[in-house]
């Protein structure tokens, strides 16, 4: 769990660049990154209103393969 918390802001491409395999980001941390982003997009922020479900999904798809594990985004 400690490692998941440590890695939940690690981004897919950064990790791929730095390491041989992006699989080194624990699966749980890859899941948390997506869940955190998806939930945040759907809540109001001082700088923007909440996004709808379809808008949030579109953002996840846009960043699949760069910020997020593409296989998980398509789950």
């Amino acid at each position, binding site marked *: *769990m400690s490692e998941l918390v440590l890695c*939940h802001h690690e981004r897919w491409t950064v990790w791929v660049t730095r390491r041989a395999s992006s699989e080194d980001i*624990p*699966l*749980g941390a890859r899941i*948390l990154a997506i*869940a955190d982003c998806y*939930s945040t997009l759907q809540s109001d922020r001082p*700088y923007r209103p909440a996004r709808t479900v379809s808008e949030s999904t579109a953002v996840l798809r846009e960043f699949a393969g760069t910020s997020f594990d593409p296989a998980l985004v398509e*789950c």
Partner: protein
Amino acid sequence: MSAWAQSTLFAKGHNPLHRVLFSIGSLTLTVKVASLPLALMMGTDAASLATLVRTAAVVAPLYFFINTALVAGAIGLSTRQPVPRVWQRNFLWSAPSYLAGAALAAFATAASARGWFGGSRCWPCRSTWSSGVTTPSSGVSAKSRRRHTARWKCSSRPSKRLRSAIEAKAGCTPEHIRSIQHYAATLAEASGLSDGEVQAVRMAALLHDIGNMAVPEHILAKPEALTPEEFERVKIHTRVGAEILRDVRSPRR
């Protein structure tokens, strides 16, 4: 540190350096000597109430005697008065306060060991969690799996309290935390993880920003864009969170 604070902060007048050093030295010596029977009598396991009372009954008078005798000795020698008289007149009356302190410490130890503060004893769990489990489409090395494999327990009691604490600190809503947990658990299930692993992801989702405790609230609550320095400060929350949770994880080697 405690002795230094007692001798300097809010002290009446200025305490010379030798007095401050004497206070630090005498307190250190007292704690060291008094801790000898403490370790012998308590052992390493959670002690029973009877053991705690017995230990407090031995350690408290010992601590009181060493602590006050050293100070009374120093006063007696520096003012050329008989040490026993100084001790009897200035320190004997304070004995009950030491006993009361020991009773309080024994109670706190017993309460902590029994999880009355909602401590880590509520955490032990049944599930085994392998965060290195891979998505169906990809493989993961045995080394990576070993490194990411951890085992711990979870129950709902600490998670409710933690949720409130995290909400209060991070300024996020209960709905936000619940939805992160929901989405994370849904993805974990879709990835083919076991029930225990899904529970573990749910718990990690609750705790993922616990490291925000180390980030000042004015930064967390700032509506405008963060300065580079503030952003650097926010970035430490993952490392702090991992450090806080380090003992919760017990890797299976």
